[in-house]
């Protein structure tokens, strides 16, 4: 196991994304290649979960797009992620807020964390 961890460390590239966890609202700036051109797309939504560790860690962002729930899973170490912004810190009681999938409208609100 330790060899695996060492290898993952070797391949890991430094990123300086802000700390965020489930319940937070974030915007992911994602680089998209179209032919030779590169442009940046922003995916903004609530973080449903963070999963895995080190190089295989991923997070899921859920947003409502035209009243349809859209979830997207990003590997946190993906070189395509340009930037992550935390828009809102949410206060939730669990690490994986799957219950949000069943909720819509006013019920799907998440309380903002107060510092």
């Amino acid at each position: 196991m330790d060899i695996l961890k060492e290898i993952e460390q070797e391949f890991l590239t430094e990123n300086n994304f802000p700390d965020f966890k489930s319940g937070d609202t974030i915007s992911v700036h994602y680089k998209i290649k179209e032919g030779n051109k590169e442009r940046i797309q922003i995916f903004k939504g609530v973080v449903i979960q963070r999963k895995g560790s080190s190089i295989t860690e991923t997070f899921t962002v859920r947003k409502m797009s035209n009243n349809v729930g859209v979830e997207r899973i990003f590997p946190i170490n993906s070189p395509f992620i340009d930037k992550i912004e935390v828009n809102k810190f949410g206060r939730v009681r669990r690490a994986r807020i799957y219950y949000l999938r069943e909720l819509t409208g006013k019920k799907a609100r998440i309380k903002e964390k107060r510092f």
Partner: protein
Amino acid sequence: MPGLIGKKIGMTSVFSAEGKNIPCTVIEAGPCVVTQVKSAEKEGYDALQIAYAEKKEKHTTSAMKGHFKNANTTPKRKMHEFSGYKNDWKLGDSITLDIFKDDSFVDVVGYSKGKGFQGVVKRYNFKGVNDATHGQHNRLRAPGSLGASSYPSRVFKGMRMAGRTGNQRTKVLNLEVVKIISERNLIIVKGSVPGSKGSYLIVEK
């Protein structure tokens, strides 16, 4: 084909230069010791016998102790014979991953994970009965007919039925080499290889 004996460390994923997420397996291969050089004059064919992984002396038979002593090495756990090596290897030489440094693809041989006694759906990818209704009950994963009736009045040999599954020698061809870390005897290949973590593998050119 020339190759090495190794051990499966486990799987992880890395990002390629283009940013693609590649699933890959880490294998510790070598250094292997040449324990016998077979030649066309003496044994009738050219081959190299190599050994890998330490073994306690008290678990080694006297005959094997003598064999390892000839090669001037400690007792080893796994041995394998490879043809296709160039003739310049001598008894007691240590072979490392450097032999793969020009290769972009390797083959990996291992024993698949044992699955125990399994039915035909898992073992041979039979479809089972697709309906749960239309008169079917408790035969969703049944094999169906084993053959015709009064002629031939028997079941043909080799009819695929339930039984022990897995734990079979399996060879995976043309796995892309992602990286070789020769100072730590590690080779990273794209994709999966047979067997559980810690199981022994043969990595071939």
